[in-house]
């Protein structure tokens, strides 16, 4: 249980960054005030959006499911409080594009009335599959920021054997302190969540990795483990170095093992979960509560009272800033996430989502430094924790040579921003890599679409060909029939008209002629 005996390793590169964490850890986590309106985006996770279960005008209770996960990689969303649904429409969401997406808008009624919950007293009586189903129902996603559905992640499949569960409490990015506060205040729930996940993936060991700049969190979690007398869970204090919190980097530090380039940690018997995700798992199983709130760090030099808040999903960011004393007069830029990997928001009229761990207000406006040409100093390659060659990737990305960028393993880039940070020419390298990634995805989508169009076009050509042939065949058959008939008529001769209709017509004609002849003789007589 001691954290000193552990042998640790280093990943390549990385940066020592000023932490700025103490500014938001001074006071305990406060509950954010209940806003008048919550805007809950339907898609807050990686994967397919869920299927909506509610309608405008409906009254919903706290914890009621708003959309359910129909696809495998998907997550449900729930009403964060009780109220009435006033709209289901496109609203701006926190996304680098500033675009809108489908949201459920709830007018809160202030009663905060829970739906009936189904807590489990003895989860070990259930099978791991049943527990995974409960996690799926609770809409839990990775709360470290990646928002990958947890029910999928804790199902490594029959072939992968998970040996070690790693709980990621590194929180390596400056300013952010929500995981730190969660570990300090909810160590009991964290340990309970760890045991549940351990049971679900049958991992023998569990390591809780915490950066050594959070001694309070380390002490709190260690005390909890000691109090419960657990032998399979241990706390590992790891050196503070950005980006130790990256999944692959953390595994390297703890085990000296490397996750293959196109592989997953489960390929080497490891599962990594964020601290807040483990707590959410505990609450979903033991209390039956779905994921409807999270801790958000509101911090930065541009906000009056930086602190951590327990926030309902869908709360407008502006209200959180107001609760933290509002903006400083020099506040210039609002960032979701940290200073290294976060992105700027154009407005604070946006809802908090499951992946929103931090709101950072900076005093300086986004700097647009005069970028200088690359001098091939290779500082970026030395800093890169994924052992890539950022300068080569930059070269090819800026000339849109996307095949070559991929040859330099673009998709192993974790967009940590170390390369941009150290670049003496101040080239926004990560932006180039993000540009290249989305372009490549777009080309892939286009390719699939054109393949699909080709199949449809070919099918249409075939169909037209077939229809033409069928028409010709029909025509030919009709002609044959006619010819046959003519022949038959010719054979029977005109002795007896075959057609009774024809005979009737001929008879009628004869009668008319006779009548005419009779009339003529009559008139002749008169004269």
């Amino acid at each position: 249980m001691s954290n000193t005996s552990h042998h640790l390793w280093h990943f390549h590169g990385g940066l020592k960054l000023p932490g700025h964490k103490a500014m938001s850890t001074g006071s305990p986590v406060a509950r954010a005030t209940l806003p008048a309106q919550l805007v809950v985006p339907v898609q807050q996770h990686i994967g397919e959006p869920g299927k909506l279960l509610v309608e405008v005008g409906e009254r919903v209770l706290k914890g009621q499911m708003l959309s359910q996960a129909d696809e495998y990689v998907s997550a449900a969303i729930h009403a964060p409080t009780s109220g009435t649904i006033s709209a289901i429409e496109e609203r701006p969401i926190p996304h680098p594009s500033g675009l809108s997406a489908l949201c459920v808008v709830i007018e809160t009624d202030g009663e905060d009335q829970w739906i009936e919950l189904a807590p489990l007293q003895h989860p070990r009586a259930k099978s791991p599959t049943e527990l995974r189903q409960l996690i799926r129902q609770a809409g839990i996603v990775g709360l470290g920021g990646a928002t990958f559905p947890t029910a999928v992640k804790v199902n490594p499949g029959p072939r992968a054997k998970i040996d070690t569960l790693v709980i990621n409490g590194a929180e390596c990015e400056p300013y952010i302190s929500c995981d730190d506060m969660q570990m300090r205040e909810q160590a009991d729930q964290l340990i309970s969540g760890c045991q549940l996940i351990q049971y679900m993936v049958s991992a023998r060991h569990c390591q809780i990795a915490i950066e050594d700049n959070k001694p309070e969190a380390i002490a709190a979690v260690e005390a909890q483990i000691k109090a419960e007398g657990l032998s399979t869970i241990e706390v590992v204090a790891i050196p503070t170095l950005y980006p130790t919190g990256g999944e692959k980097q953390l595994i390297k530090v703890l085990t000296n093992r490397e996750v293959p380039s196109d592989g997953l940690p489960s390929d080497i018997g490891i599962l990594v979960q964020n601290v807040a995700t483990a707590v959410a798992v505990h609450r979903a199983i033991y209390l039956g509560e779905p994921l409807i709130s999270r801790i958000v760090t509101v911090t930065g030099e541009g906000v009056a009272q930086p602190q951590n808040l327990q926030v309902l999903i869908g709360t407008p960011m502006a209200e959180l800033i107001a609760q933290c004393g509002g903006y400083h007069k020099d506040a210039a830029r609002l960032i979701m996430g940290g200073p290294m990997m976060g992105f700027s928001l154009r407005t604070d009229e946006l809802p908090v989502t499951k992946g929103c761990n931090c709101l950072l207000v900076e005093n300086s406006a986004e700097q647009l430094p005069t970028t200088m040409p690359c001098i091939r100093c290779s500082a970026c390659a030395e800093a890169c924790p994924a052992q890539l060659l950022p300068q080569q990737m930059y070269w090819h990305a800026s000339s849109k040579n996307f095949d070559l960028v991929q040859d330099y393993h673009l998709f192993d880039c974790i967009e940590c921003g170390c390369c941009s940070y150290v670049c003496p020419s101040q080239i926004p390298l990560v932006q180039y890599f993000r540009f290249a990634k989305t372009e490549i995805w777009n080309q892939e989508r286009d390719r699939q679409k054109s393949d699909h169009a080709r199949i449809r076009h070919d099918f249409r050509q075939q169909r037209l060909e077939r229809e033409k042939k069928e028409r010709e065949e029909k025509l030919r058959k009709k002609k044959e029939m006619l010819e046959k008939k003519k022949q038959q008529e010719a054979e029977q001769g005109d002795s007896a008209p075959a057609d009774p209709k024809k005979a009737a017509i001929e008879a009628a004609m004869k009668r008319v002629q006779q009548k005419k002849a009779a009339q003529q003789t009559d008139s002749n007589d008169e004269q």
Partner: protein
Amino acid sequence: MSLVIAVVTVAVIAALFGLLLGFASVKFHVEGDPVVDKIDALLPQTQCGQCTYPGCRPYAEAIAAGEANINQCPPGGEATMLALAELLGMEPMPLDDEHADMPEKTVVFIDENTCIGCTLCIQACPVDAILGAAKQMHTIIEDECTGCDLCIPPCPVDCIHIKPVKVEPDTWRWPLPEQRDTAPRA
């Protein structure tokens, strides 16, 4: 005598190779032209005819035969031209004015109040993306529409309009960072 031996030997060898080649041409016969398939795979399959050929495959055949340039495909734009240049080992060429790059992707939609149900657009659509029957209202299946605009000229009441494809958060692309005086010099 040695002259005869030499002539006979060479003749026998020639006959053997002839047989071998004949056998190979039958055994390893390739149906169709694989280059055309490869070119066709790179084209966007809008079947729009803006390259002056009646569809993507005819254009691919024309490129393979050396009759057409690689810069005549507006929906494919620069990316397709570069891919073709790479495949064929040719120098990239700028898109000519006539076939200038299309700025954004579009699809069409039918103004259903005006549609008279004449089925002319259905017959024009190369990918069967229009649904309807005679004297019934028609509608576009947006996911299948390639934006070729071939349905617009036949429409007798001008009820088909072009609209840009909506960008969603998951199809949004990061812009290339602004380059001020910093074009990388190789």
